[in-house]
């Protein structure tokens, strides 16, 4: 398998874009798109391959890992350049590929400093690929930081609404999280005798119980900050709102998954005893986040804030699933990472690209009746909204029901608490849908009041372009495919989750 090529190809794309003249914007876009497609193709090929061999692999080696590349990197620290793939990170690599391609398509209209935008964008993508693949704590941390820097520039340069504040808040939160993570990683490294940074090696000999008790929350919370765990979530809505469309898609789509993935890979795998001690409070924090995020989303007036808070709510399901330590809950959590990545990307694309770029407002009271003028956006929102509210037939349902089954096994009250969010989610999605796409009796906000007639002005909105349509169709198709045929991902997730759980006991 050559999954590491996702990183190299993406960085190669960055290099090519850097060499191109800034004025040839069309060429830059095409190169970026090709780069994204190349990464996605590598991911897909490896997915197909892995899907075929996973059974034999586990039977033969007792482990779900395929070691893609494992060479010494910094001998002084015993750090290795170790990349590996299993059924947990492969769906996320795929997700990153899809979000990258569709994000580029949704950024087709970026005219300001196009070259830098796509360069930063692809660096971020490469960093994310790296985090998902790295099996060495030090390497993981390097990639993790690599992913944070471009976020700041993308938001601060191409963002909107209080972009400096949002960017600063996001980066500070991220770095505080990183600091916690870094302390945690170092503590583990030192406690384990400074012999290796390799996750799989470290997992074999967990550090002492006392140390785990202190380090686990440090490491877990450090990562969970990026996953939007309550009460460390406030970067997410402001960051999402300030970010340009593609960056919101990346933030909610994959960067939040970096957090939850880190929680799983570095936190839970290395410190099973700390996990056992802390899982109850963390599970309840997740439930609080689920309901809290949904409730706040319901009273928001800014369309993008609604989606931002909904991400907090949905990422709560991931964290809850992780804490269940149950084959259902964990599989559900991994599937939810994928599902939410797709749903959130789609929702942010509708809000940021399809609606905001055309009407220049995101306030619910100023919008209305857009179903008539941009019907495709309405369709996309209904599909993404349905997936978001856990309608059967879409991926979110399959993921959330598994998380809830796992939570129910842990304690029925966790499941009941999380289920309370169901009608609230419906309420905010439908409320947004009504206010933005239906009810036409409102003055149409934003640009061009010359006609003075809301209805006619609505007709002047530019139509949905082909790149937008293609990208939206790709994401919607993913939602439906995973929703109707979950086996396509569950077949690789489940055996690996089982192995992980067997390793714990």
């Amino acid at each position, binding site marked *: 398998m050559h999954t590491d090529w996702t990183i190299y190809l993406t960085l190669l794309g960055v290099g090519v874009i850097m060499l191109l003249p800034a004025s040839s914007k069309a060429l830059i876009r095409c190169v970026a798109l090709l780069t994204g497609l190349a990464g996605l193709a590598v991911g897909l090929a490896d997915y197909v391959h892995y899907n075929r061999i996973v059974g034999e692999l586990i039977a033969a080696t007792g482990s779900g890992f395929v070691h893609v590349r494992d060479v010494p990197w910094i001998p002084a620290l015993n750090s290795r350049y170790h990349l590996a793939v299993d059924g947990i990170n492969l769906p996320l690599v795929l997700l990153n590929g899809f979000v990258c391609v569709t994000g580029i398509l949704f950024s087709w209209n970026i005219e300001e400093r196009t070259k830098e935008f796509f360069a930063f964008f692809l660096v971020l993508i490469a960093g994310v690929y790296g985090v998902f693949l790295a099996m060495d704590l030090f390497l993981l941390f390097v990639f993790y930081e690599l992913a944070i820097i471009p976020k700041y520039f993308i938001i601060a340069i191409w963002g909107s609404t209080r972009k400096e504040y949002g960017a600063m808040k996001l980066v500070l939160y991220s770095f505080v999280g990183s600091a916690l993570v870094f302390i945690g990683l170092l503590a583990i490294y030192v406690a384990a005798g400074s012999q290796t940074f390799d996750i799989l090696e470290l997992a074999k000999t967990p550090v002492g119980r006392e140390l785990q008790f202190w380090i686990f929350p440090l490491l877990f919370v450090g990562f969970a900050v990026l996953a939007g765990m309550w009460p460390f979530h406030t970067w997410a809505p402001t960051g999402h709102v300030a970010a340009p469309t593609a960056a919101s898609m990346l933030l909610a789509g994959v960067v939040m998954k970096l957090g939850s993935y880190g929680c799983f890979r570095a936190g839970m795998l290395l410190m099973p005893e700390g996990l056992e001690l802390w899982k109850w409070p963390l599970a309840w924090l997740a439930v609080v986040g689920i309901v809290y995020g949904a409730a706040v989303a319901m009273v928001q007036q800014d369309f993008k804030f609604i989606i931002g808070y909904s991400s907090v709510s949905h990422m709560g399901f991931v964290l809850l699933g992780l804490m269940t330590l149950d084959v259902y809950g964990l599989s559900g959590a991994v599937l939810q990472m994928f599902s939410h990545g797709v749903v959130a990307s789609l929702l942010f694309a509708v809000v940021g690209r399809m609606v905001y770029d055309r009407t220049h407002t995101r306030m619910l009271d100023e919008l209305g009746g857009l179903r008539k003028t941009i019907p495709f956006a309405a369709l996309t929102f209904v599909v993404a909204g349905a997936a978001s509210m856990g309608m059967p*037939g879409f991926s979110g349902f399959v993921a959330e029901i598994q998380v809830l089954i796992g939570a129910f096994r842990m304690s029925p009250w966790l499941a009941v608490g999380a289920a309370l969010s169901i009608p609230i989610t419906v309420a905010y999605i439908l409320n947004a849908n009504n206010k933005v796409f239906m009810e036409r009796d409102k003055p149409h906000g934003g640009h061009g009041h010359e006609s003075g007639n809301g209805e006619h002005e609505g007709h002047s909105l530019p139509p949905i372009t082909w790149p937008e349509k293609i990208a939206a169709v790709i994401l919607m198709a993913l939602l439906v495919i995973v929703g109707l045929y979950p086996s396509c991902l569950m077949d690789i997730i489940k055996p690996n989750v089982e192995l992980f759980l067997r390793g714990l006991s």
Partner: protein
Amino acid sequence: MSDHAQHLQQLAAQQWLIPFFPLVAAAIQSLLPRSARRLSATLTILAMGMSCLLAARAFWATLPVGEQHDEVARAFFNFTWFRFGTTALEFGFILDPLTAGMALMVAFVGFWIFVNATGYMAEDENFTRFFCFLSLFAASMLGLVVANNLLLLFMCWELVGLCSYLLIGFWYFKPSAAAAMKKAFITTRVGDIGFFIGILMLYQHTGTLTLYNAEGTGALQQAGSLGQLAGWWGLSLAGTIALMLFIGAMGKSAQFPLHVWLPDAMEGPTPVSALIHAATMVAAGVFMVGRMFALFTANAGDWVMDFVMWIGCITALFSATIAVAQFDIKRVLAYSTCSQLGFMMMALGAGGLVAGQFHLLTHAFFKALLFLGSGCVIIGTHHEQDMRRMGGLRKYMPITFWCYLVGMLALAGVPPFAGFFSKDEILVATYHHNKLAWVLATAAAFLTAFYMTRQMFMVFGGTWRGGQHDAHGNETTGHDEHHGHAHHEPHEVSWNMWLPLVVLSVFAVFMGWLGTPWLAGNLFHHYLAPEMPAPEHANIVVVLSVVVGAAGILLGWLIYGRRPMQHAAEPDPLAGTLGGLFTVLNRKWYVDELYEATIVRATQALGTLFRAVDKLVVDGILHAIAWIWWGVSQLFRWIGDELIINGGFDAGCESVRGGGRLLARLQNGRVQTYLRVMALGAVVLVAIYFFR
């Protein structure tokens, strides 16, 4: 395995075809251009016809044959959907009398509603989309009926809800429709929390969601053992799960206190009201309770059955009182639907599975008839829905009138129409179970007869009161002349609208005879549940129900028929008698206002509170930390940098400047000095080299 059983098995494996045809039709239509109206309607109706034929074939196969009289003909077909946790999640289809009867009803009634819709929607520009949604709805409803897996049932259940959402809000540009669609979805979704938890509990304790399987380990086949385990709130485990599922059914079947969405759902086009909010979707809750009946009855000591009965009973009476004071022709029917669904639930709660399901079937026919009839009236009167501005339509719309009359008599429970027999069965079942519930139900039956009579006289009796827009007092003659006289005179509707009425009327007349104890000992009972004992008959119930029905009609005639309304602005005669109570009923007991003031307000407040917490507490702490950090930095700058370090720095600068001066002197351009320095340097280097 006998030939018959094998045949059933084969048919069960083909059950998926029943929802398949409408699903394909919906898929094709979603791709059709807006102009393909005729093709779209033809596709929808053909697909539904196919489903209807398949359902009829399945129904035929489940009819009792020969000697197998004491066993339910049940066959199922399961297959793996995906590996789910430690086990494979199976999906499957079922064929048994409950499913077969329901599927045939849905497909048949749906077929005729679709035919009617071609007329009702004839002038709508989004005709194609409407039929696409209708097909999708039919597919999901039929999928729900044939599902042999609670999860599949739930998926279809949600899809049905989604289609209902789309169809209620079909005229989305009306703010009232947009509000109604939202309300319907959210309210049913509240009930779904219960359903969802029920599913989780069932899975947790049985390890499967398949209802029946060949090994006998299906969820329903384990109901007996679940009945022995303890659950929550003094119920057995089976009872707890049943209660949770029932909460879901309360949302879908609009049972008190989750009934509020159904009347508002009348904002949708009338065929939608007929299909979804009378005949099929709202019946899904009742059907689901029937399907999961084994859980409800698993432990005889559980109070869950009483709960079902009382909720049904309260709904039946409560909605009937509201229906008395409504003026919108569709709202009267909507509350009557709530009320009838209450009757069905009450029957189920009283143990009358057969009675409940039988009423479900007969009610579907005559309520679809009534709704389609009201649709004809609305079209015939040029989109008038207020009964006060109707009247005298008997003269203008004779076919509609006669069909509507049949439907009304069936609903009012007049023998020998269908509703009489099915309602009678319910009353008998309730009578044996709980006398108080029976009395209340009989009162509801009285009100039913009364409000339907009221509606008949207001709509069809008296003289035409349309065109008297006196409420606003500006009905201009100029307007009349402009649009021509014909525009205000009601007219009979086209054949594709009245034909379904006629067909449904036939069933509204004759269908009840299938379930009467006086004809071959209750055929329907033997069909649906041969293993259950038929309820004993009670003459007092029958007599009283006839008397009450007659009294209701008589009272209706006394108030509304004897002296018909003359003028649209006239107050309702009942308003004078009942006074303030009439207003309370007209405003639906202020339940909406109550919810608005409590639940909606509370949830909003919670959200606002959380938002404030985010802004003030979470971000407040964050900002405080940032400020403290900034302050500390400033402190460092003042005390540390400015005083100590900078002080030193300045001094250092001085010394550097001094050093500079010194060095500058070295570069004064005098060669001697350079040589001197070079020599010194050489000496030093040599010294270092040797003494190192």
